[in-house]
C-alpha cells in the first residue's frame, strides 16, 4: 500500500471482502454438502463488517492502490467516498437480508440446487459488486464488472434443469457481454483522450468526450435495463432464486446507475443531446415497464418489469440533474441528483423486500403464477404484512421512503417548470409531472393487483390453500427490509445530509440540503395512527352490536367457488384494452360445441400479447448474425482443391496489394 496512512476502518472494508472471498473458496470445496446456515452466517458477517467499515470511514475520502495485484494496464485501486458508501450501504443491507432469508429458502430448493456452486457464485457476486462500486480505475471496474456479470449468469442458471432458466441465463449473458463491449469501447476512447485509466483524470466536459460518453451511456443502459435494451431483464431476474433476484434487481441494477452517476454526472458531462436522449429513454422505460408489469401473470416477472420502471425514474432524475447543471440552476441540479440517489437507495430496499416476499410465496406454494395463488393472507400473515409494506413503499404512498424520493423528483420537475429559462423546457418539465403521475397511478394499479390477487380473497388452488408460513429467518429478513423502508421514510433530512458532499461535488458548489424535504412524514404518520386509533376505539368497540362472520355476499347463490373470483388478467383487462395498440394486446376466444350460438359447450379465452420489441428488433438481429455465419460457413466446403485455390488467390491479392501499398 502506498505510504499514505490508511484509516483503520478501511481494513474493516477489506476484511468484509476477505470474508466473502474465503466463503467462495470454502463453498467450492464443500461441494454438494448443504451448509446453508454456515454460509449465510459468513455472508451476514461480511455484510456487517462492510457496514461497520462504511460507518467508520464515513466522511473521509480515502483511496488505496494495491502493489502486487496488477491487471496489466492498471493496478487494483479503490476509493471510498460518500457516493460509493451510499451504494455499499445498500449492498450491505440487502446482503444481510438475503443472508437471513437464504437458509429457509434454499432448503425448499433441495436437490435442484448445487449448494457449493450456488454459494461460491453468490459470494463472488457480492464481492464483485462491492469492488465495482469501490473501483478507482477503469481496469479494476471492468474486471469486477465482468466477474459480476458471469457470477450472476451462473446464479440465474442455478435451477438449470428447467429449460426456461437455461434460456434466460444465455440471453442475459449475451446482453451483459454486449454492454461490456460498449463499456470497453468507451473506456478505450476516454483513455486515448486522457492518457490514463484513473476515473479521477477523466473529464467528460470537453466536446470531444461526447461520443465516448454516449458509448458508456449505452453500455450502462443495457445493464440497467432501460427501455429498448430491457428485454433481457424480465427473463433473467425471475428465473434466479429469490435471494439472487432480490440482489440483482435491488443492487446490481443500481451498480449500473452508480457507474452512470460516477462517470457521466461527476465526470462533468455537459452535453445536452445525451441528457435529452437519456430523458426520453427514461420516460419511455418508466411507462413501458409499469404497463407490462400490469399485464404479467408471473409475480416475479411483474416485479422485474417494475424494476424497469423504477430504473427509468432514476435515470430521469439523473438526466435532469445534468440538464439543470448545464442550464446553470445548481440548486435544482443538486435536488434532482439527490432524488436519483435516494430513489436508487429506496428501490434497492423495497424491491429486494418484494422479491424476498415472492420467494417466500414460491417456497410455500411452489408456484409464482398469480392465477393459482390467492387467500395467502390467512396462513402467511407475516409475509403478507411485509409484502404489503413493500407494495405501499413502491407505490410511493406517504409515510414510507418511496414517497420521499418520488416527491423529490416531483419537486425538481415542478421547480424547473417555473425556473427554467426557455418555454419548451418548462413545458417538458410540467409534461413530465403529468407522465410521472400517470406512472404513479399505473404502479398503484399494478401492486394493488399483486397484493390483492396473491394474498387476499379465496385461495385459487389447493397448493395456495395449504400454504404454510415462511420460516422465522425468512420473516426476519423481510421484516428487516420493511423496517428499513419505514426508517428511510422517516429519516429523509438526515439521509439528504449524508448525500450533501456528493451533490456539492456534482454541482461544483456547496449544497445545503436542509430545505430539500419539507414534508413532516413523522407528524403525518403520528396523526394517522392517532386518528386510526380513535376510529377503532370509538366506533368499532368490541362489545358493540353483534359481529357475525358469514359467507361473502353473492346475490343469494350460496358460497361461490374461487373460480368466480377476480383473477390477475381480468383485473388488468380494462387498462389493457385502453393501451391495446401499445401492448399488442388481443384476447382470443374460441367457442366449441355443436350449436355454437345457442349451446356453447366449451369457451376458451386466451390473452395473446406479441412481444413487440423482441419480434421486430432482437429476433431479426440474431437471425442476421446466424445468416451471416451460415453464408461464411459455405467457405468450408471440404474440397482440398478449393482450399488450395484460396491459398493462391490470397497470394495474388497480397502481392498486388503489397506492391501497391
Amino acid at each position, binding site marked *: 500500500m502506498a505510504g499514505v496512512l490508511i484509516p483503520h476502518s478501511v481494513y474493516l472494508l477489506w476484511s468484509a471482502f476477505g470474508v466473502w472471498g474465503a466463503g467462495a473458496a470454502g463453498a467450492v470445496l464443500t461441494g454438494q454438502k448443504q451448509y446453508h446456515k454456515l454460509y449465510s452466517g459468513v455472508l451476514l458477517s461480511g455484510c456487517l463488517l462492510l457496514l461497520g467499515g462504511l460507518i467508520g470511514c464515513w466522511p473521509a475520502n480515502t483511496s488505496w492502490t494495491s502493489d502486487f495485484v496488477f491487471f496489466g494496464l492498471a493496478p487494483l485501486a479503490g476509493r471510498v467516498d460518500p457516493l460509493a458508501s451510499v451504494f455499499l450501504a445498500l449492498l450491505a443491507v440487502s446482503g444481510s437480508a438475503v443472508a437471513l432469508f437464504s437458509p429457509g429458502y434454499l432448503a425448499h430448493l433441495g436437490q435442484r440446487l448445487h449448494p457449493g456452486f450456488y454459494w461460491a457464485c453468490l459470494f463472488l457476486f457480492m464481492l464483485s459488486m462491492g469492488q465495482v462500486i469501490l473501483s478507482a480505475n477503469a481496469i479494476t471496474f471492468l474486471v469486477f464488472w465482468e466477474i459480476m456479470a458471469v457470477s450472476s449468469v451462473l446464479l440465474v442458471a442455478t435451477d438449470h434443469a428447467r429449460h426456461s432458466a437455461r434460456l434466460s441465463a444465455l440471453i442475459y449473458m449475451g446482453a451483459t457481454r454486449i454492454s461490456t463491449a460498449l463499456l470497453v469501447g468507451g473506456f478505450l476512447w476516454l483513455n486515448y483522450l486522457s492518457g490514463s485509466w484513473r476515473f479521477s483524470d477523466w473529464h467528460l466536459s470537453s466536446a470531444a468526450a461526447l461520443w465516448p460518453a454516449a458509448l458508456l451511456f449505452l453500455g450502462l443502459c443495457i445493464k440497467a435495463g432501460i427501455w429498448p435494451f430491457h428485454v433481457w431483464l424480465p427473463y433473467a431476474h425471475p428465473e434466479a432464486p429469490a435471494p439472487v433476484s432480490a440482489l440483482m434487481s435491488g443492487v446490481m441494477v443500481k451498480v449500473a446507475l452508480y457507474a452512470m452517476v460516477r462517470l457521466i454526472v461527476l465526470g462533468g458531462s455537459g452535453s445536452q443531446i445525451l441528457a435529452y436522449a437519456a430523458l426520453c429513454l427514461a420516460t419511455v422505460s418508466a411507462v413501458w415497464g409499469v404497463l407490462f408489469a400490469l399485464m404479467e401473470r408471473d409475480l416475479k416477472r411483474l416485479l422485474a418489469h417494475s424494476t424497469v420502471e423504477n430504473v427509468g425514474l432514476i435515470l430521469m432524475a439523473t438526466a435532469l440533474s445534468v440538464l439543470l447543471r448545464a442550464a446553470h440552476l445548481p440548486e435544482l441540479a443538486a435536488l434532482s441528483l439527490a432524488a436519483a440517489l435516494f430513489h436508487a437507495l429506496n428501490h434497492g430496499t423495497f424491491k429486494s423486500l418484494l422479491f424476498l416476499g415472492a420467494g417466500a410465496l414460491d417456497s410455500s406454494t411452489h408456484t409464482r403464477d398469480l392465477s393459482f395463488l390467492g387467500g395467502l393472507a390467512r396462513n402467511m400473515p407475516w409475509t403478507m404484512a411485509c409484502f404489503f409494506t413493500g407494495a405501499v413503499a413502491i407505490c410511493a404512498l406517504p409515510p414510507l421512503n418511496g414517497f420521499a424520493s418520488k416527491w423529490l423528483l416531483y419537486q425538481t420537475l415542478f421547480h424547473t417548470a417555473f425556473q427554467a429559462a426557455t418555454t419548451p423546457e418548462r413545458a417538458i418539465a410540467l409534461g413530465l409531472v403529468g407522465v410521472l403521475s400517470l406512472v404513479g*397511478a399505473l404502479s398503484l394499479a399494478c401492486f394493488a393487483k399483486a397484493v390483492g390477487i396473491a394474498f*387476499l380473497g*379465496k385461495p385459487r388452488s389447493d397448493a395456495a390453500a395449504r400454504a404454510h408460513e415462511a420460516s422465522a429467518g425468512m420473516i426476519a429478513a423481510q421484516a428487516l427490509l420493511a423496517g428499513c423502508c419505514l426508517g428511510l421514510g422517516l429519516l429523509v433530512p438526515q439521509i439528504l445530509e449524508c448525500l450533501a458532499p456528493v451533490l456539492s461535488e456534482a454541482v461544483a458548489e456547496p449544497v445545503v440540503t436542509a430545505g430539500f424535504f419539507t414534508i413532516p412524514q413523522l407528524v403525518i404518520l403520528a396523526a394517522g395512527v392517532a386518528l386510526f386509533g380513535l376510529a377503532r376505539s370509538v366506533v368499532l368497540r368490541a362489545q358493540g352490536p353483534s359481529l357475525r362472520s358469514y359467507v361473502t355476499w353473492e346475490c343469494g347463490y350460496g358460497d361461490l367457488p374461487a373460480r368466480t373470483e377476480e383473477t390477475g388478467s381480468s383485473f388488468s383487462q380494462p387498462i389493457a384494452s385502453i393501451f391495446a395498440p401499445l401492448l399488442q394486446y388481443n384476447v382470443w376466444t374460441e367457442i366449441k360445441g355443436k350449436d355454437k350460438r345457442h349451446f356453447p359447450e366449451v369457451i376458451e379465452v386466451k390473452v395473446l400479447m406479441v412481444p413487440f420489441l423482441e419480434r421486430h428488433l432482437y429476433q431479426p438481429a440474431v437471425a442476421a448474425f446466424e445468416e451471416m455465419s451460415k453464408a461464411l460457413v459455405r467457405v468450408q466446403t471440404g474440397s482440398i482443391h478449393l482450399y488450395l485455390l484460396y491459398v493462391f488467390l490470397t497470394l495474388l491479392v497480397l502481392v498486388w496489394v503489397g506492391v501497391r501499398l
Partner: protein
Amino acid sequence: MTEFFRWLVFLMFVVLAPPVSVGIIRKVKARLQNRIGASIFQPLFDLLKFYSKGETVSEVTSWIFRSSAGINFALVLIIALLVPWVQFKPHVASADIFLVIYLFAFMRMMTVLAALDAGSAFGGFGASREVTLALLIEPALVLCLASLGVVSRTSDLEQIFSFANLALSNQPGLWLLAGSGLFLTSLVELSRMPVDDPTTHLELTMVHEAMILENSGRNLLLVEYTHALKLLVLFGLSAQCFLHAIAPVWQLPAVLISAASGGAVLITLALVGVQEGLSVKLRWTRLPEFIAYAVTMALLSVLVAIAGRLGS
C-alpha cells in the same frame, strides 16, 4: 380568540357538513325531478342508524378489510386538515400538492384492497374499474393543481389558494380552467352521475358502490362518512377555484371571504345536484371520452400556466 373560534367553526363544519352536503345534492336532484326528496339531514340519520346496526364480516377477509375503513377515515381527516377547501380552515401544516395527491392514492389503495379482500366478483371488478379510472384522471388532477402552483411559484396549496397570492390575482381564465378541470376530475373520483349512478342497485354497472358491498354496520358508517368528507373536500377545492375567478371577491375583508367560500361550496354542491338530475350514466367503454374532457381542461390550464407568463 378568533383562532379558537375559527377552529371551533371548522371542526363543527367538518363533523356535520359531509352528510349534510350529500343530503343537499339529493334534495336538489329530487326537486328537479318534481319530488320533495328526503330532508338534507337524512344521510346524517343514516350514519347514526349504521352506528347501532349489527355488522357482518365475510370469513374470507383478512385484517385489511377490517382496518381499511379506519385508515381511510384517518387519511381523509388529514387531507381535510391540510387542503384549503374553505377559507376559514386554520393552518395545520404545509399542504404540498403531491403529498395530497398521494394521500388520495393511499386511500384508493386501501379501498381497492378491501374490495379484493372479500373475494367476491363484484368487489374484484369494482376495484379494477376504480383503478382504471384513477389511472386516467390522476394526471388531470395533478396538472390542474400544478399549473396553479407554477404560476404562483409555490407547491403549497394554502399559499396558492390564499387571497394574498398576488401572482394569481389577475388570472381568472386560469382559475376557471383549473376549477372546471378539478370539478370534472372530482366527478370521476367520487364516481358521481356521468361515471357511476350512486343510487343504482345493479352491481354490474357499479364502480364505487361495488367496492363497499361487503361493508356493513359501523364499518359502513366510517366508509360513508369518509366518502362524504372526500366529496366535500374535492368539490370545496373546485368551489374555491371558481370563487378566485371572481375579481371583486379579492377586495372583500377576511370574514366575508370565508363566508363567501362556504357559500361557494354550497352552490357547487347544488350544481352537482342539478348536473345529476340532468345527465345519464355513461357506458363503461365510453367513459375514457368523458375523462378526455377533464384531461383537456388540465392541459389547457397547463398551456395557460406556461404561456401565461409570456403575457404578463
